[in-house]
């Protein structure tokens, strides 16, 4: 029977059918659901790791010990895991090792749109790219076969559109896969120069062999029809090609690294005009052109964002689609939810005139109107060392107007090393950990600080205050962000002193509480002076309607933050006169 599955769910099914024993990840849109779906299979041990580097290293250990292992992350997560990635290419595997990386063309939920195929090329690792959910499942199984046959880790590239699209999948029974025997072998698993030099030769031979075999892989499929115009493509863009050019010849690359050179040469010799359709970077195009083959690619098509069927119609068919233009309307950017504990932080920082280095998570939304509470956002963990850099460049007096903002999960991911750096190098920065007891933006995953595992079991809870103290921070204080006087005092005091400090603003994500029926606040129109102070909170539940300030009772959760902001006591709890 076939059923609809998200691309990410299909990957999870593929892992199950491949007999995977160990699955690891750090959550990151658009890859998160892969590991959430895997965790539902009792047969597979699945875990969140503190970050992607740790996740990959756990999977490498499991693979070397003889078990099929899978590790998933988003594109920027692979930057974090790049260190083990480049060297596991040298060691190869024992049990199959498959690394899933989900790129985000169009940046639906990311800070850049890097193309992970470059990693496959530079680390000399085979990479597959499916074009629908069925292939997502099938390619995982094929990846494990390739991994074990050629003694190599295998990357699978997804994109947001594949991860978060549903299409039909036919499932099958899981394969019985026994653990492989482990044999101690320093020449393979201890990568010191003497051994690694020899392994580099193995890597080169392996990739040459795969390149030769790739032209025969069923993953790479050449179908010939109209020989005037043809396409070389992979992944989701293949679907756009088929949509627009049903009769064209198409070479669909299921393996995007290494490229099947002889198959491509053969295709291009038979088809007169060949277009390369690849989202993001011209990776196929540059390689194919370097072989002296004339193809058309990025001269016509952008390196930015997602492609579409209409884009191909316009750029390749030169069709004038005469499309209606989009209306010019007020934008609707994502916002901090009504009742979000982060809102209070930014409101108070604004009031105190503080700048903030920021980080990656829901709280990044505090950067936009009207809170505008962040100065920077670069990567996971960057807020803390960046503030230290500002202090070292401009002095402590200057940074008395600054704090670093980071979430609980991001702090564990890669904030702690920045904090150690501050202590070690005699910095005085104030770090605010916004502890909302979850990994929020990716949809509420547990992490070491929540004390619950991916499988929902209780575990030792990471004690954030104790952790900060143990690295040498003497001044650690925990505040409730909804108690605004405590919060203000904490920020004022900690930023004025000559030693490093940590303020942990602790209040759970409002969305975690799904059961309570909150009492909504209301605005007493008699008392309201229309000063607009409450609008500065950027709460989606407070708005002006027909000239008067109102609270939307379908959105308000009764966090009461607005009550403390109103100078005229015009905002009241439901039922209170």
């Amino acid at each position, binding site marked *: 029977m076939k*059923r609809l599955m998200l691309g990410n769910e299909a990957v999870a099914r593929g892992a199950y059918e491949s007999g995977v024993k160990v699955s690891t990840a750090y959550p990151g*849109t658009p890859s998160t*659901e892969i590991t959430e779906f895997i965790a539902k299979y009792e047969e597979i041990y699945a875990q969140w790791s503190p970050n992607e580097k740790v996740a990959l290293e756990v999977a490498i250990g499991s693979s070397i010990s003889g078990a099929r292992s899978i590790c998933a992350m988003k594109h920027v997560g692979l930057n974090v895991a790049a260190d083990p990635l480049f060297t596991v290419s040298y060691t190869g595997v024992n049990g199959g090792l498959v690394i899933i990386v989900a790129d985000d063309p169009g940046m639906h939920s990311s800070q850049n749109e890097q193309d992970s195929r470059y990693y496959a090329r530079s680390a000399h690792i085979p990479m597959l790219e499916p074009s629908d959910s069925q292939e997502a499942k099938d390619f995982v199984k094929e990846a494990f076969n390739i991994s074990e046959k050629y003694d190599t880790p295998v990357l699978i590239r997804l994109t947001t559109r594949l991860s*978060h699209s*549903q299409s*039909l999948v036919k499932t099958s029974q899981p394969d019985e896969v026994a653990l492989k025997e482990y044999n101690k072998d320093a020449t393979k698993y201890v990568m010191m120069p003497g051994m690694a030099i020899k392994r580099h030769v193995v890597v080169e031979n392996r990739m040459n062999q795969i390149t030769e075999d790739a032209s025969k892989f069923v993953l790479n499929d050449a179908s010939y029809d109209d020989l005037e115009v043809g396409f070389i493509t992979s992944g989701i863009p293949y679907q756009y090609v088929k949509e627009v050019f049903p009769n064209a010849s198409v070479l669909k690359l299921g393996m995007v690294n290494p490229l099947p050179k002889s198959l491509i040469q053969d295709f291009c010799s038979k088809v007169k005009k060949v277009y390369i359709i690849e989202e993001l970077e011209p990776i196929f195009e540059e390689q194919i052109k370097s072989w002296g083959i004339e193809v058309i690619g990025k001269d016509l098509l952008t390196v930015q964002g997602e492609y579409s069927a209409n884009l191909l119609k316009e750029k390749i068919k030169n069709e004038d689609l005469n499309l209606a233009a989009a209306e010019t309307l*007020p934008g609707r950017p994502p916002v901090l939810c009504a009742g979000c504990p982060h809102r209070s932080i930014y409101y108070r920082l604004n009031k105190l005139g503080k700048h903030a280095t920021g980080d990656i998570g829901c709280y990044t939304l505090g950067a936009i109107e009207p809170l505008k509470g962040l100065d920077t956002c670069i990567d996971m963990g960057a807020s803390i060392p960046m503030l230290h850099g500002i202090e070292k460049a401009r002095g402590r007096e200057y940074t008395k107007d600054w704090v670093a903002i980071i979430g609980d999960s991001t702090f564990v991911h890669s904030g702690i090393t920045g904090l150690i750096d501050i202590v070690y190098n005699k910095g005085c920065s104030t770090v605010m950990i916004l502890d909302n007891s979850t990994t929020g*933006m990716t949809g509420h995953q547990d992490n070491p600080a929540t004390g619950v595992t991916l499988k929902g079991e209780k575990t030792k809870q990471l004690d954030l205050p104790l952790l900060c103290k143990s690295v040498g921070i003497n001044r650690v204080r925990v505040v409730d962000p909804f108690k605004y006087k405590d919060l203000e005092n904490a920020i004022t005091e900690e930023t004025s002193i000559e030693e490093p400090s940590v303020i942990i603003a602790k209040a759970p994500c409002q969305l975690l509480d799904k059961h309570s029926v909150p009492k909504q606040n209301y605005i007493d129109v008699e008392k309201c002076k229309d000063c607009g102070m409450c609008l500065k909170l950027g709460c989606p539940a*407070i708005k002006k309607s027909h000239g008067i300030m109102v609270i939307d009772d379908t959105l308000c959760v009764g966090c009461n933050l607005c009550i403390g902001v109103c100078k005229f006591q015009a905002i009241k709890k439901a039922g209170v006169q």
Partner: protein
Amino acid sequence: MNTKNILIVGVGGQGTLLTSRILGNLAVDLGYDVKLSEVHGMSQRGGSVVTHVRYGTKVYSPLVEVGEADIILSFEKMEALRWKHFLSAEGKMLVNTQESDPMPVITGSASYPTDIMEKLYADCKEVIEIDGVSIAKELGNIRVVNTILLGLLAQSMDIPKDQWIEAIKLTVPEKTIDINIQAFEKGYYHGINLNREV
């Protein structure tokens, strides 16, 4: 069969995803090839969201293109206008008239347009509007707005009513089945004079 293109749009958190999944699974039951494209992650936090549903004999792209939607179901009034250009010349616009102010409107840097319905009626061949929030309040449960909208969508689709009701039973919590079926009927018979109460 030619591929059917449906766009379900709204504001993150309104339940557009669930509605599209119910529709997608019904199309599977009818034996069609189906693709759904969803929005997860950051945009879900109160941002503008869209789900694409395509079904037919063979579906390649998971995306409905500009000018190709047979139906747009909008959970919010301004979002209908934002996605209007996706509608085909023959397409049908279904609009929940609920207004949700985006942050630029809340902060006063932009105004909520006042001519949305005029523009929709001027540019779309067929528009059906519904005040889902008022109907839900009448039913005594504000959370059933999306089931009312599901009913409205069902009215415009050639999928038997019984199958929609079965899908609702499988999707909603057991103790809310009755009120959700009532809500579905309100949407399904919206604008249709049956000379009886539904």
